[in-house]
């Protein structure tokens, strides 16, 4: 459910969207089932929708030591300044996050960028994947290889991500329900098992790194269900070539309001989990010394597949992968590298420090 985190970040971080109840609300494009996703066009931005993101998470190996990393770009249509002739009109805002999980550091290193779209300084192409935000970039070459650059506190990433598998369309051919109401949905596809090569700069030293990553692409115009307080999400590259996606939306009492996910085998057989087919059993918890929030950092994901129930117990790379994005207007959440027996991926836990406001 990375999408919901991201949307909340957007609404909280973009000042001009601080009041979504603008009298003349613009007509955001609706998410409807049955729309055929077209590539490379749908790799690019969809400015008529309210929110959109390019979300890369993965594992790197630096001198044999494992590292988790995240590079994510967001786009939001604010609904503001739609008829303002100024090139500064804040119609679209781009922002981006990066984080590095190093067990030797024991906490997340991160970085961020935010800007309103325009002047070539912050742009998201509508033809193919090409997002620029100051000195950060995510671009897809004609050969289909992704290249990204980002910098954070004391580190920089310059990575090449090469797809090794076809696109994974989530939900019904890319139409993914997020809540009990029909409109609560997004267009959603993933690129698991991206082969990563590139350079990790750390305190002035540049090292070659390699690893494996996951791209989530999602765009939507709808809001989270009002009774939701947070969600859990995970995406795991299985060592046998399979790909696991699972999420659930929680209410204030910790019950699942909605669940979803998918499981694709190495051979490419894909199965989409209907609502109710996914469960997160809490397992061990970790309490943040900074915020006091208690996170189930090692949950067990259960999935009722047609072949019977599958279980994956997630183990974090280390416990303290909490990200406090309040200084930039975002929420406090946990976004960390996790292992499962026979796989590695990312886990996202939101709404544990405080209910997410929308």
């Amino acid at each position: 459910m990375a999408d919901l985190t991201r949307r909340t970040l957007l609404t909280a971080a973009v000042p001009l969207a601080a009041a979504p109840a603008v009298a003349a609300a613009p007509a955001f494009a609706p998410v409807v089932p049955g729309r055929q996703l077209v590539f490379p066009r749908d790799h690019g931005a969809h400015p008529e929708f309210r929110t959109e993101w390019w979300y890369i998470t993965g594992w790197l190996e630096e001198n044999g030591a494992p590292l988790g990393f995240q590079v994510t770009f967001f786009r939001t249509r604010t609904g503001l300044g739609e008829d303002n002739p100024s090139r500064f009109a804040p119609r679209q805002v781009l922002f981006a996050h990066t984080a590095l999980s190093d067990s030797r550091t024991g906490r997340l290193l991160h970085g961020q960028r935010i800007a309103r779209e325009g002047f070539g300084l912050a742009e998201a192409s509508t033809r193919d994947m090409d997002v620029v935000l100051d000195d950060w970039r995510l671009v897809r070459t004609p050969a289909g290889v992704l290249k990204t650059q980002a910098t954070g506190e004391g580190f920089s990433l310059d990575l090449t991500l090469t797809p090794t598998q076809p696109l994974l369309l989530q939900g019904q051919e890319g139409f993914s329900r997020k809540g009990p109401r029909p409109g609560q949905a997004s267009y959603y596809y993933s690129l698991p098992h991206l082969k990563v090569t590139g350079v990790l700069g750390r305190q002035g030293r540049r090292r070659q790194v390699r690893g494996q990553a996951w791209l989530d692409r999602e765009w939507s115009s709808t809001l989270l269900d009002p009774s939701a307080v947070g969600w859990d999400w995970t995406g795991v590259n299985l060592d046998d070539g399979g790909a696991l996606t699972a999420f659930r939306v929680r209410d204030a009492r910790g019950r699942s309001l909605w669940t979803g996910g998918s499981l694709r085998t190495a051979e490419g057989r894909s199965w989409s989990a209907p609502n109710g087919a996914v469960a997160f059993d809490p397992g061990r918890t970790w309490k943040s010394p900074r915020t006091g929030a208690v996170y189930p950092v090692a949950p067990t994901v259960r999935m009722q597949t047609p072949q019977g129930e599958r279980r994956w117990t997630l183990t974090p790379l280390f416990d303290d992968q909490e990200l406090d994005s309040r200084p930039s207007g975002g929420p406090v959440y946990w976004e960390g590298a996790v292992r499962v027996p026979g796989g590695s991926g990312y886990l996202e836990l939101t709404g544990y420090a405080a209910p997410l406001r929308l």
Partner: protein
Amino acid sequence: MPADPALPPTLLGWMVRGEWRANPVRTLVAVLAIAVGVALGFAVHLVNRSALAEFDSAVRSVSGSADIRIEAVTPAGFDEALYPRIARLPGLVAVSPVIEIAARTTAGDPLTVIGLDPLRASRVTPALAAASGPGSGMGFGSGSGRGVEDAVWLSPATGWRAEPGAGSATFEIREGGRRLVFPVAGGLPGVEAGRRIAVADIAAVQQKFDRVGRLTRLDVMLAPGLGPDAAAQEILAVLPPDARLVTPEAETRRTSDLSRAYRVNLGMLAMVALLTGGFLVFSAQSLSIARRRPAFALLRVLGLQRRGLFLQVLAEGASLGVLGAALGLAAGAGLAWGVLGLLGGDLGGGYFSGSQPVLEISPAWAAFHAGLGLAVAIAGSLFPALEAAGAPPAEALKAAGRSGDPERRPPLVPALVLGSVGLAAAFAPPVAGLPLFGYAAIALILAAGVAAMPWLARVMIAPLARMKAPVPVRLAAARLAGAPDQAAVALCGLVASAGLMAAMGLMVSSFRGSVDEWLVAILPADIYLRVAAAETSGLDPGLQAALAALPGVTGMESRRSLTLKLAPERPAVTLLAIPVPPGTSVPDLPWRRAPTTVGPGETPVWISEPLSRLYHLAPGDKLDLPLAGRSVRLRVAGVWRDYGRQFGALAVQRSDYVRLTGDTGANEAALTLSPDADRAEVLARVRGALPLDLAAQTEIAPAGEIRQAALKIFDRSFAVTYALEAVAVLVGVAGVAATVSAQTLARRREFGMLRHVGAGRGQILAMLALEGAFLGAVGAVAGLALGAAMGQVLIQVVNPQSFNWTMDTRWPWGLLGGLTLALTLASALTALLAGRSALSADAVRAVREDW
């Protein structure tokens, strides 16, 4: 046996306490003299410092932690395409685009509208784009808003207050004939008190104020380790002529330059007041020591060492200094507080508008001013102390007072040397833009005058003694002629303060006369019209034609006046686009020298005197002017007098301006009326011809009214100077009162003798009054002569070097005559009062005591 102490502390305590108990008034006057000097110096310093600190923080909160800034040279701004070009340069961490607009509130107060991209500004100018807590995100400030994309956030000084439960508030802003109503989103608590600022989204400001595509500023934060100089190279390569690079150093220099000359002048005046205090201490101590000569001699006979006596006198002076300094610091802080509250940081000079700085007191500077007061008090006691210690005790024990040999001519050489050095200093160039040598010249001339007093007192008093006159007159003259050194000492403080008053009077009178003449020259028409805060809009050509066609109007000149920067580290200058009268080739300006002609194909520009001096330009020089986004080469064709724009002004022919910029608008107009037109009626017609919005921010006034208003502002800005001078003169007169009364009391024996030999009480009083009058007159005449010299230094050296303008000398005969009369009368009166109290004592017994 105890060790041999140079000055036993017990003795010092007894003597100081005894002297204060015996002569509280005289002691108080000396203390006050020091206190006044310290208070004035400290107050001026505090006001300056607070104003500067306020200035600095104003600059900081608006430009934040920007390492360098790129600024438009004119309020019209530069093309926003520069923004991405700069933002893409390597080594820049953040670039925040800003559009700033000078507008007004509905009340007519100046208001700065700042358009920001909060996402960019949050890194550079957090005070304006402050995240005031979790949840408000990267918003502008506090408060929750609706429709925030075109709402404004307001600083406290705008008068807007958040009222809980109130409906959606709105705020009206006026600019260039527009009235714009904005919803209010919240307050700007990060902006310091006194600054009227409205912040809105950059896109909204561009749209609402019709500035789409324009920016006025880019705030740039550099990567760590990248110096402004290195970045400047890259930036300068892409900078268009209508934008300039400004580093914070240059900015701070510019803002402090704004009022530096004014502040330094006030500070120097305060120092001079302190110096006058020093002369008064000298005068008071000299007389006090002369009076106590036998007492000191007794102490020497009883075993006080020579060095001990020297220290004793010095310590007495120091005790006056300590008290005076303490009193002065308190008074200075109070004065500064009052001045800041009443007049603002510029003492009414009009340099920093719309702000109320906070008083800032630094212990180090307080100590500095206290130390200065103490040093002056000790220096004033130095000569008396040396004299007391040098006197042979056996003789001093017998003679009550040594008045010097009337036949001996005191040396004039030291005074002549001081005067010559002072004269030479007057011809030295300014130091760092300040007339430091000019002030040195004034101090030296003052010192020369005081040094010449013993000689001068003899020269001026001797003829009096030979007059045929009634007995009291001859007695008074003889008494003064017989004790010229005492007269000279009594005159020190008086001459110093009278001289300073006369010098300032002469300077201000010359300045005011020249300004008055200038006002007449620059306001030849009957009615003037000015649209405020409308440098890029105002009167369009249609409106100009409509105004010119009004009944009763026989002529009209439209002008465009706007500000632009010629050098990044200097304050903006004013550009006037003015018409040239038909049949001539030069406009009507108060020419300093006859204007020259320019070559064919060249565009003439006429520069003001301050601009000519500040930028070292003379007729015939080239001048590149940033106009309408490009650099235009002009030829300087003349220099005109200008007292209105200290940082410089230039005039170009309006047709040239229109050709170069395409701007046919105007924000000023001069209307000439037909002789038989009813002025009030025409004024009403002009007002009626303006659209409502424009009329609200347009000032229309007859030339006479403007002239009066200008002179009123002039007088107000000099009111502080007058007040300072008046205090100095009061201290001077108090000094005369103290010295005359001291002498009178010391001369009780002399009066007793006179009574014994048959002089009437009335005759003695008349003699005393005449003595005082003689003293006052001599002091005033000497002071005026000295003041004339110092005034010329102020006019010919200090003013041109401080403010870059010249003026013609005009003698304030009334003031000088009045000053002479007042000093004479005041001295006579104080002498009379002192004499009455002296004569009330038993004169006969006074004689018996020591005869």
